[in-house]
């Protein structure tokens, strides 16, 4: 079953044609990786899924993007609701200047939930889901800034999970982390796909290989090749994909 489906998506930043007719479908409860050289459009495309590009001036998007069969650019769609459904984790951990507990509870409070027991239960569950609970359960009231970079990133993932999205977007979630923290995030991605559809942008091809079920290679705003990660990394069809994954360009 497809979780995300896009049809002929074009995106222009003013005169610059950043995405050129992207049509692809991402399966539910799978990890899909976007790879490609800088400026190829992979992050731009990812940000279409929670309408982050709406915040940029002079952006024009055409085509159709369906998430769980709903057209997210339809007029009746409220962007706040969309972003509850489609969570996002960024390159650098960005915890709020609050306690660990309040970081995770933030989305629930914004959503108008005030039931203390419910919030506590959801915070614990989210932290467990993000493989962070055992490390922070005795210091939930401490500032989130006291955590290491890797822990902060997992806290941001817990914050995303607390509002129970269906899709989690990850834009280079481990590129600012050390190898051990990166390994923890990658293990977490494997665990999370049981409950969420995950789309990850990564510059690290080995990471795409390790964590994803499917991989899409973008180049100059075009989707060059998309398929099972095993196939893309062992026998890509397009020469440009082959040259990129073997390090011959990019």
């Amino acid at each position, binding site marked *: 079953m497809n979780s995300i489906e896009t049809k002929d998506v074009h995106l222009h930043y003013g005169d610059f044609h950043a995405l050129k007719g992207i049509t692809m479908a991402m399966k539910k409860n799978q990890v899909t990786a976007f790879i490609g050289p800088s400026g190829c459009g992979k992050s731009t495309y990812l940000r279409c899924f929670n309408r982050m590009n709406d915040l940029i001036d002079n952006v024009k998007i055409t085509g159709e993007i369906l998430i769980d069969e709903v057209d997210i650019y339809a007029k009746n769609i409220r962007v706040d609701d969309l972003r509850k459904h489609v969570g996002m984790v960024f390159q650098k951990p960005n915890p709020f200047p609050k306690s660990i507990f309040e970081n995770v509870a933030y989305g629930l409070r914004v959503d108008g939930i005030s039931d203390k027991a419910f919030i506590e239960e959801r915070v614990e569950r989210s932290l467990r889901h993000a493989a962070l609970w055992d490390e922070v359960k005795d210091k939930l009231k401490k500032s989130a800034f006291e955590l290491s970079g890797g822990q902060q990133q997992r806290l941001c993932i817990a914050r995303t999970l607390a509002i129970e999205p269906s899709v989690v977007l990850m834009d280079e979630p481990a590129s600012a982390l050390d190898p051990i923290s990166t390994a923890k995030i990658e*293990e977490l991605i494997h665990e999370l796909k049981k409950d969420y559809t995950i789309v990850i942008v990564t510059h690290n091809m080995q990471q795409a*290989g390790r964590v994803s079920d499917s991989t899409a290679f973008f180049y100059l705003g075009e989707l060059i090749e998309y398929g099972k*990660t095993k196939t893309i990394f*062992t026998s890509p069809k397009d020469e440009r994909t082959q040259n990129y994954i073997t390090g011959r360009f990019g």
Partner: protein
Amino acid sequence: MNQLDKELQLIKAKVNAMWELVTAQVSSAREALETANHDLARRVVKRDKKVNTYDSKIDRMCENFFALYNPVAVDLRWVLATLKINANLERIGDSAEGIAQQVREIEGTFSPELLEITRLPEMFTAAQDMLQDAFRAFDDQDTTLARELILRDKLLNKINGKKDRILVKYIQAHPDQIDHCLKMSSVLQKLERIGDQVTNIAEEVIFYVDAKMIKHKSMKKKTKGKKDKPDTGEAPSV
């Protein structure tokens, strides 16, 4: 267990299943030969396709593992060794099939005298034991046992080395048994090859556990078993 270890476990489970099948193939080939059971021989020949399927599957799994996980150190050695062990198991499967093929073509059974003078049962038992012990060495990362296997191959070479002289004498005394003798020669040759292939497997076990390449070393150096490990790290827990 992290994802890399899970992937290694999946490959290992497939190799274990292939090992079990190949071991059963050799046993069935022996039973078919000793009992002149053409039906069993036919089944061994047919089942070799399954061995080939395992071989292709394990090759593909290893290829994917290299491409997706970029293994290093002991993980790299384990996958490299597994690829070669897989190839050797497939060839042992071919030998079992070849023996079964000889059984299908033979009329009647080998005479007890021919079996005794060629030491075929002894050779079969040695080859089967070696194959089982090679699995133990791989599974337990037991390089002492692997080195013993390399020594035990000498017995198979010795028996096979004497076969021509013994068979020529037998043919001279029993000219009506030429066909049986030629087939016996082929079976003995295949068992000797199984010994070589088990030796190759044992060398791969030593390579993966001790990080030592011994395949082109003298027998003395191969079986010396010095524990001067140059490398790093524990063997993966697969």
